[in-house]
């Protein structure tokens, strides 16, 4: 009896699981499928390709437009992630460990920024960046990315830092460590997983951005892949760009899939701990 119910319960859950997986995977599989279709079968309306080809990938890697955009995407996201995580870690350490006036204000400001409508910044930033001559450059995108990634970084990291037992720092001091040694030898190794998780979340955020990418760039110089994708349409008038767009889309999706596959547990814990314990 008991065995029967658990089997049935398992079946029921299994069915729901399959539903979720299908729901999540279909759009991804579809765009991957399109990227492998030959031009002849592209418009057959079938979900899976009948003829497989890698031509679309060859095409995009042969065009400067895509390669340049990919380099921009990777470079800008990495720099922004690095800076946001370092600045965020400093602030989060102070918020979770130290007592000082103005702490509540900082938390409040970062919360406000997390909710800020980015489009409201597009027009002033467009104008300011033109005056500062950083329009259509890497720093022109990195700056807003850092700004909007900082609240995420601060929240996630303070949640992680708060889990580090406070006694350890005291113990390190009693064992003869200076504040700096206590941080480097005891706290930093414990904080590393949190830093790593935060870095992934921030990277995904920067990698994902579209609005700033199309508003604050005007040439291939600093256009990232999401922005470049939307301009592929007019790239070559004689060819249908669908296959190329899909191939490019798959290329920038691969890192995300890898992150999700390898670090599922960390990403989930990062997103949830920051959200609730905030």
């Amino acid at each position: 009896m008991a065995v029967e119910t658990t089997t049935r319960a398992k079946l029921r859950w299994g069915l729901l699981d399959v539903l979720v997986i299908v729901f999540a995977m279909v759009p991804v599989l579809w765009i991957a499928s399109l990227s492998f279709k030959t031009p002849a079968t592209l418009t057959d309306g079938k979900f899976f390709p009948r003829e497989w080809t890698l031509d679309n990938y060859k095409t995009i890697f042969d065009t400067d437009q895509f390669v340049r955009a990919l380099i921009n995407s990777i470079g800008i996201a990495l720099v922004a992630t690095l800076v946001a995580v370092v600045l965020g870690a400093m602030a989060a350490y102070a918020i979770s460990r130290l007592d000082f006036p103005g702490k509540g204000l900082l938390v409040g400001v970062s919360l406000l920024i997390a909710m800020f409508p980015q489009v409201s910044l597009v027009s002033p930033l467009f104008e300011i960046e033109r005056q500062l001559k950083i329009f259509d450059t890497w720093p022109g995108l990195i700056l807003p990315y850092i700004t909007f990634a900082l609240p995420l970084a601060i929240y996630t990291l303070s949640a992680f830092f708060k889990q580090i037992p406070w006694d350890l720092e005291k113990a390190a001091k009693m064992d003869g460590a200076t504040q700096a040694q206590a941080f480097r030898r005891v706290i930093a190794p414990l904080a590393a997983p949190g830093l790593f998780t935060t870095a992934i979340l921030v990277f995904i955020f920067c990698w994902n951005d579209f609005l700033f990418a199309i508003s604050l760039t005007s040439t291939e110089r600093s256009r990232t892949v999401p922005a470049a994708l939307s301009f592929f349409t007019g790239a070559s008038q004689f060819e249908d760009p669908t296959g190329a767009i899909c191939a490019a889309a798959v290329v920038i999706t691969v890192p995300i899939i890898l992150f999700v596959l390898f670090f599922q547990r960390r990403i989930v814990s990062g997103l949830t701990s920051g959200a609730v314990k905030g």
Partner: protein
Amino acid sequence: MADIVLDKVSKSFPDGTVAVQDVDLEIADGEFVILVGPSGCGKSTTLNMIAGLEDITSGELRIAGQRVNDKAPRDRDIAMVFQSYALYPNMTVRENMAFPLRLAKLDKETINAKVDEAAKVLELVPLLDRKPANLSGGQRQRVAMGRAIVRQPKAFLMDEPLSNLDAKLRVQMRTVVSRLQKQLGTTTVYVTHDQTEAMTLGDRVVIMRGGAVQQVGPPQELYDHPRNLFVAGFIGSPSMNFLHAAVQDGSLHTALGEVPLGDRVRRELEAADAPRELILGVRPEHFEDAELVDEDTRRRGLEFEAPVEIVESMGSDKYVYFTVEGERASAAELEELAADAGAGDFAGGGGNLVTRLSAESPVVEGQSRRVWFNLEKIHLFDPTNGRNLTLHEGRAAGALAD
């Protein structure tokens, strides 16, 4: 190795609350001193000030004759064992124990030798390569101790080091701590809220309440000669019985009968501002089944009869709970003690009297029994300030002393 001197040490917070007030304490080289008291009494704050983890607001702290108020913890050369053990989870047992030595920049061979020696003393040798996560509570506790002893500091500070262990292990570790301290002869300050630990471990016990020291002395002295109601109630398990007593015509009216008074106590009570209401304190072991008391002894005490409520046989003796009528003794100290015991709002039946009688006593639950108690061992307290009125030059002399 060093002595530790607290000279009018106080701690107050920016919001004005005073956590520790004018603590004077001289801890001799090699001494084992226990700080004990209910939670919030300032014992941990005092320990943290000695450690250097909290600032001293005023007063002076000297270790080995040197003022250390403004020294960082690492410059004080003292080791600390934490209640949570505070083992570094990313390091193995060996690395944990070697950490203070590596910070002191000792060479590898010396470090290994010292860690091995400490591990042998604490029977940690087979665990040296494990991570703290893979250790039991008792093992973690031993690693924390090992980390403290390995660098041979001037003093050990221990902050409720055994309170996270289960009861049986706690008793076992108590002897380990005690033996280790004697072996090493290192000055030790030990904080606990458990009066049993305080009684069994220390050379001297410091009882604190509300940030102030109540009494300092060897455990037995605190037990026999408590300076005030708080100390009397805190030390001892089961704790002292407190009964309401009214002064009338040179004797005391209590629920246990008329208690005659000796000259000394009477003189004290004749003073103009002397209280008319007192609190009578009798420890459970100073009661005895009246049948089992010989004539000689009987004369030094008083008898009464009361109904037996509960009998708990301990084998060696019996705890017998009597119901006695009469007003309950009340004082701020008693309420605080009850609250600390977690029984603040749970009186558990009015005038219960706890006695410890000989195992031979044939008491039966539900029947009345004649009981004798020793008048030379009773204490009388002033309920307004808690002072022990039977104390003469630091010694308690009972009610009959001349």
